[in-house]
């Protein structure tokens, strides 16, 4: 299917690149940042690398119900600055967020700033240099920055999540540019996340979470497992729009300490679930009613999640007494490059 396009002419490559950026911005095709022009030759290279046919429909994305074909995904991947070899990861990411159990339409139109967060597991992290260590959630790594960005462009250009038009998000979020990292499986003393979900360690997977926030938790160094977990739990209170679950990116220091103290992942889930409770009278009455109706309260305390199983534990990042709490739930995992 022919894609909308802009024809540009200029005697200078640099000026042509600027014209491409201006033209794409005018059309509403960018996230505000410059794009790489998606020429036919570049798109064809990306499609070839995907292992799929160009016209194959990977997903239909709400609310606009645009068809994310392999070709369309390639166009947005080129614009985002991806390498062709990232295509299987991006395709798997789009499949994950298009799962009917993933609340994509809600995410696309709500006034809340929620967004997909992507976790990558398996050998693909090394193959594509997807950062899972120091700085894994920040700038500086092409794969992390551009794969996340490609998905955002797809959500906007195919799904129609244009700010103020279909997307009613009051503030938007910096997390909507790119929110992705790998799991630090090498420094994870327990099983990797994708193995917990039934995949083999040698599989490469991507998991999409519905993510409502980002919160770095500092401290808890050398104070014992109970204090580490209390420090984490006090930074993840019940919150509006975040009740689906918790994703804890446990820093490598704390992961090692908690493992050496003899704790398994399910022990961490149980303890965090018990510690992350707040008295009901701390909250607005409407919120208490809503949380109790969702099974996250007992008449005296509000719980962070319905059960310990809704607290997902992943090890990521570099050395230091830091963890990251994401109000994240509804995980959908897909194999990469099947």
């Amino acid at each position: 299917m022919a894609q909308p396009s802009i024809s540009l002419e200029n005697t200078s490559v640099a000026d042509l690149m600027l014209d491409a950026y201006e033209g794409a911005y005018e059309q509403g095709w960018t996230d505000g940042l410059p794009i790489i022009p998606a020429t036919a030759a570049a798109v064809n290279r990306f499609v070839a690398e995907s292992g799929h046919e160009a016209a194959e429909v990977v997903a239909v994305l709400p609310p606009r119900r645009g068809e994310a074909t392999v070709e369309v995904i390639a166009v947005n991947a080129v614009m985002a600055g991806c390498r062709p070899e990232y295509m299987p990861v991006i395709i798997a990411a789009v499949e994950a967020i298009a799962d009917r159990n993933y609340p994509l339409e809600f995410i696309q139109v709500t006034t809340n700033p929620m967004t997909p967060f992507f976790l990558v597991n398996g050998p693909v992290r090394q193959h594509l240099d997807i950062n899972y260590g120091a700085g894994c959630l920040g700038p500086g790594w092409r794969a992390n920055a551009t794969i996340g960005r490609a998905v955002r462009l797809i959500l906007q250009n195919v799904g129609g999540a244009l700010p103020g038009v279909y997307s009613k998000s009051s503030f938007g979020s910096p997390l909507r540019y790119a929110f992705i990292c790998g799991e630090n499986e090498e420094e994870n003393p327990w099983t990797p996340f994708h193995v917990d979900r039934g995949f083999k360690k040698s599989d490469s997977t991507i998991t999409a979470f519905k993510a409502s926030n980002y919160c770095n938790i500092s401290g808890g160094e050398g104070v014992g497992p109970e204090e580490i977990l209390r420090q984490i739990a006090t930074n993840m209170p019940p919150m509006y729009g975040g009740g689906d679950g918790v994703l804890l990116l446990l820093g490598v220091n704390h992961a090692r300490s908690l493992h050496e103290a003899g704790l398994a992942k399910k022990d961490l889930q149980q303890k965090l679930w018990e510690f992350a409770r707040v008295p009901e009278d701390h909250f607005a009455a409407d919120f208490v009613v809503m949380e109790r109706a969702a099974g996250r309260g007992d008449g005296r305390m509000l719980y962070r999640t319905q059960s310990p199983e809704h607290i997902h534990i992943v090890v990521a990042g570099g050395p230091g007494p830091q963890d990251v709490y994401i109000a994240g739930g509804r995980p959908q995992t897909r194999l990469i490059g099947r």
Partner: protein
Amino acid sequence: MITTDAFSSFGRRLAATKGFPYVVIAETPNPIRQLDEQSLNQRALAMIDTVVFGLTQPPAAIERSIRDTAMQQIHPKGVVRAAKPV
């Protein structure tokens, strides 16, 4: 469709994605969450004629009467993003 006016355009846009661009919209000023029962009843009474129109008129007549407005709401000319929601 019954909406508050802040969401009328948005509601029509979403209805269009489901295949119903010419849905009749009965709207009331936003917000309503603070209204008591009597006030809500008054708001509902003010919308009832629009609801009856939408339920009793043939689809072709509805489309004729609101087509231009609906198209402008669904695809506002020249708008690809809006800091003040469209």
